[in-house]
């Protein structure tokens, strides 16, 4: 449903993203991994309309959305979350989620109902009246997810929703993400937590220095020598393949 072709972006002469091609099929969970500064977030930002690409195209459901403003892309059903969480700090959790919910309805009552339902789905029911600035990191990450979900997206772009979470919290959010996928939302995520990547994704792309260096199923990626060299390191790769073996 999402096609990215030849996407390029440079900042101050340095290529952050260099001719990247990738695609996400409906109903899948696709991961984008790679070292820091590889251009993952920039890629997301271009897909979601926050950064205009220098070259290349972004097509969603066969329509060209390259260079559209974020809100128009959201209208089409593509919503991103932020790596560094961006809550509406003085608003309550409920009010935060309502901003997303308003995207589907102008009615306050309806927006509130929708927000409550989404909060339940991501496990934030108990936190509805708390000010967003008082949430823990885990809470904020969930809030990011909940707000995005409340807009009723077809494709969710999740930027490191697991960074800074402990293993228990990661397991919880993995369950939530799976649930979202099962409810019919396609998911494209950036993640460092390899355990989750292995566990969740149907397909993965690896970026390094702005260039795609590998693509394939997680298992295939974990054994890719390029990926191990540039990103995973041997230790992590061993652990991962071990985990996958154990998990399977």
């Amino acid at each position: 449903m999402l096609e990215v072709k030849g996407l390029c972006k440079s900042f101050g002469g340095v290529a952050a993203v260099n001719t990247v091609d990738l695609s996400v099929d409906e109903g899948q969970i696709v991961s984008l991994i790679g070292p820091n500064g590889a251009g993952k977030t920039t890629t997301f930002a271009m897909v979601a309309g926050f950064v205009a690409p220098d070259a290349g195209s972004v097509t969603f459901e066969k329509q060209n959305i390259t260079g559209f403003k974020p809100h128009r892309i959201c209208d089409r059903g593509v919503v991103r979350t932020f790596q560094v969480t961006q809550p509406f700090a003085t608003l309550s959790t409920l009010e935060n989620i309502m901003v997303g919910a308003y995207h589907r309805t102008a009615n306050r009552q309806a927006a509130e109902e929708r927000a409550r339902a989404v909060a339940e789905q991501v496990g934030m029911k108990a936190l509805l009246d708390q000010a967003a600035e008082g949430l823990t990191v885990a809470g904020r990450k969930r809030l990011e997810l909940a707000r995005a979900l409340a807009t009723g997206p077809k494709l969710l772009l999740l930027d490191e929703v697991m960074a800074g979470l402990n293993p228990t919290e990661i397991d919880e959010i993995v369950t939530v993400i799976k649930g979202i996928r099962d409810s019919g939302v396609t998911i494209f995520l950036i993640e460092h937590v390899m355990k989750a990547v292995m566990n969740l994704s149907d397909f993965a792309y690896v970026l390094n220095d702005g260039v795609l260096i590998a693509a394939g199923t997680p298992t295939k990626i974990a054994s890719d020598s390029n990926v191990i060299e540039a990103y995973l390191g041997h230790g992590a790769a061993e652990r991962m393949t071990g985990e996958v073996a154990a998990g399977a």
Partner: protein
Amino acid sequence: MLEVKSLEAGYGLVQVLRGIDLNVNSGEIVAVLGSNGAGKSTLNNTISGLYKPFAGSIQFEGQEISGMASERIVEMGLVQVPEGRRVFPNLSVLENLEMGSYRRGKGNRAKNIEHILEIFPRLSARLKQLAGTLSGGEQQMVAIGRGLMAEPRLLILDEPSLGLSPLLVEQMFTLIKKINNDGLAIVLVEQNVVQSLAVADRAYVLENGEIALSGPASELIDDAQLKKSYLGI
């Protein structure tokens, strides 16, 4: 060398830490583990003098430091490398390092910078570059290097692996061990339980503002309670 006794602390009116007892001996790596919101950062910041404790005592090398201004604590040789690196983005790498020795003056500056560039050779080529333009891993190196410039005897590293790729995480832990080999005591505050315990001598597990577990790293790594409450296994 660091002795925390019955510490109660928090920020504003919110109490986060309850009755924390913790000690670090010279030359050790002590890991402080715990999930988000367990109080790790509050603990660091209280030790570093950013927050004033509500009650309890913090002694560093026999001297009471609770409630002392943060710059005095740095001067005494207790330095924190904060979570999220917090390098000075508008200063060059060199200037960042120089600022690390703000309290030490210019006496050993050149010598120490040389030493740090030995530890982090990657920074040599980037000395003139603004720290804000570095990659995350490089910024982490600057942050640690800046901390070392203060000639600490105890270094608190707050989540040094956060946001780094697995490869860099591995390198980071190797470096931490290397720095420790020079005789520097380190408090390693981490979520990355497995790798932290691999380098640490001893560890504390913080839960809901209290010490839930403590002991030698080698024992903790097999602890069932830790696995259950923290690793979720």
